[in-house]
């Protein structure tokens, strides 16, 4: 079923080659629009749904910008049938988040083609904006050359985001169509692969040439995956130490102002209305005084640790590790570290991996009669 093709790179400009490939898809009668990151007034890169091929000129899916997880946008575009076909150019973590949202019935794959590009990683929003302010000329290509294939910890003096440094999923395995970067000669050609029948059809429609996977690809992917996994494990170890009792957990989130940006930015925090925004948490004013009297003092805003622990319980099985929670935090709290640490454990407990397989039901949506019998009853420490 898999079919391998390639995109030719001209003038040492791989970003332009990807743009041309997107344009060839958009030119098809069967494709109505392309969702892709693109430059806005030379200042920043935001997702856009593009129908006019001229506007694809500003598309730059390989820039170091990752302003938001676009799975949330895919959800908006597909929660009912969009009435046409959209090619969505996404990072691997965005694709995995889309799959989680499909399972939660908040997105649809009908009329959607997931186009994934090997992920070079990204900068945090503030770092990206600072970098862009210094000049955006050829930034996408500069970034690719700077980080592929070695996945260093920084780019032009600015740190790659912690989430990306520790992400063991550089390849968008779940995409309908995949564009490879690792192991490719960025000045010559980029491998393209279709993983599904709908991906195949599109490659057929544009008469994509038959090709071979670059010989170095597997080794290059393994190498970056290994390096990032090692960074991830070091991150887990450090974070576990920082939060290993409830006092330390509260301290970790000491600067939290309960703005809930981390939840808004999270692609898989799926409730339409979060319990923390309901009147359950509009405590009666006398309660605050009660707490202050009982404990001598109460940290305000209240419920901070409660909020984070509840979010961990509600969505960590769906966490894709995109790091947008940390990215969104006004006070630079390393939120992602705690969520990934917890997610790693909760997903393993249910033999689940967020976004791995669209057929796998979310762990808390199913049960069976004879499972986990060992946790029933009283045990001693």
């Amino acid at each position, binding site marked *: 079923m898999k079919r391998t093709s390639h995109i030719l790179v001209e003038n040492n400009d791989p970003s332009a080659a990807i743009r041309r490939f997107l344009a060839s898809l958009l030119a098809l009668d069967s494709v109505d629009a392309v969702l892709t990151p693109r430059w806005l007034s030379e200042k920043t890169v935001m997702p856009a749904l593009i129908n006019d091929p001229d506007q694809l000129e500003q598309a730059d899916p390989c820039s170091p910008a990752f302003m938001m997880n676009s799975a949330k946008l895919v959800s908006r575009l597909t929660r009912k049938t969009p009435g046409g076909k959209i090619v969505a150019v996404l990072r691997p973590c965005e694709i995995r988040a889309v799959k989680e949202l499909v399972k939660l019935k908040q997105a649809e794959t009908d009329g959607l083609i997931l186009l994934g590009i090997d992920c070079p990683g990204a900068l945090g929003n503030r770092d990206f904006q600072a970098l862009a302010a210094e000049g955006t000329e050829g930034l996408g290509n500069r970034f690719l050359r700077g980080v592929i294939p070695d996945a260093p910890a920084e780019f032009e003096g600015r740190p790659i985001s912690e989430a990306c440094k520790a992400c063991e999923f550089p390849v968008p395995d779940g995409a309908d169509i995949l564009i490879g970067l690792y192991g490719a000669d960025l000045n010559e050609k980029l491998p393209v692969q279709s993983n599904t029948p709908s991906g195949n059809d599109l490659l057929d429609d544009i008469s994509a040439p038959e090709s071979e996977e670059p010989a170095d690809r597997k080794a290059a992917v393994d190498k970056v995956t290994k390096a990032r996994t090692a960074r991830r494990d070091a991150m887990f170890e450090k974070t576990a130490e920082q939060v290993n009792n409830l006092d330390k957990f509260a301290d970790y989130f000491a600067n939290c102002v309960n703005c809930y940006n981390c939840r808004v930015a999270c692609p898989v925090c799926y409730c339409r209305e979060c319990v923390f925004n309901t009147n359950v948490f509009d405590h009666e004013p006398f309660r605050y005084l009660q707490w202050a009297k009982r404990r001598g003092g109460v940290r305000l805003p209240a419920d901070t640790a409660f909020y984070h*622990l509840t979010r961990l319980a509600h969505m960590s099985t769906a966490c894709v590790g995109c790091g947008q929670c940390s990215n969104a935090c006004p006070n630079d709290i390393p939120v992602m570290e705690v969520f990934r640490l917890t997610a790693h454990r909760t997903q393993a407990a249910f033999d689940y991996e967020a976004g791995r397989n669209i057929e796998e039901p979310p762990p*808390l949506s199913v049960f*069976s009669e004879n499972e986990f019998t060992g946790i029933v009853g009283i045990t001693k420490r």
Partner: protein
Amino acid sequence: MQKEDPTIIAFVCNWCTYTAADLAGVSRLNYPKNVRLIRVMCTGMVDTQYVIKAFLEGADMVWISGCHPGDCHYINGNYKARRKVKLLKEILPLFGVSPERLVLTWIGASDGIEFAQTIKQLTDIAREQGAEAGGAA
């Protein structure tokens, strides 16, 4: 460090364990007063946040008790509860709450004696284990 007067927050199902509590009372069985019973219509409705809140408020133990497998009034609420308990037993230890402090049992409506015995056992364990760091947030 021993703890003389531990607090155990219990979420008990209306159809079984709560009825067993009633029976224990009617039968004049003695048990320690450390358990605060919260009656719920089914253990399946015990959201993870209730358990988290109890621990954050300083509970030494949280006990969830429902109907034996196959006996759930709503067919499968107890299985859903078991998954949530499994989830919490993975999450809470990361933050210093040992998994033994969250207990799930099945106690049927006619098991008044078992109800009283379970409370005694839980209280003994909570006393013995004493306090872990953190909690009153």
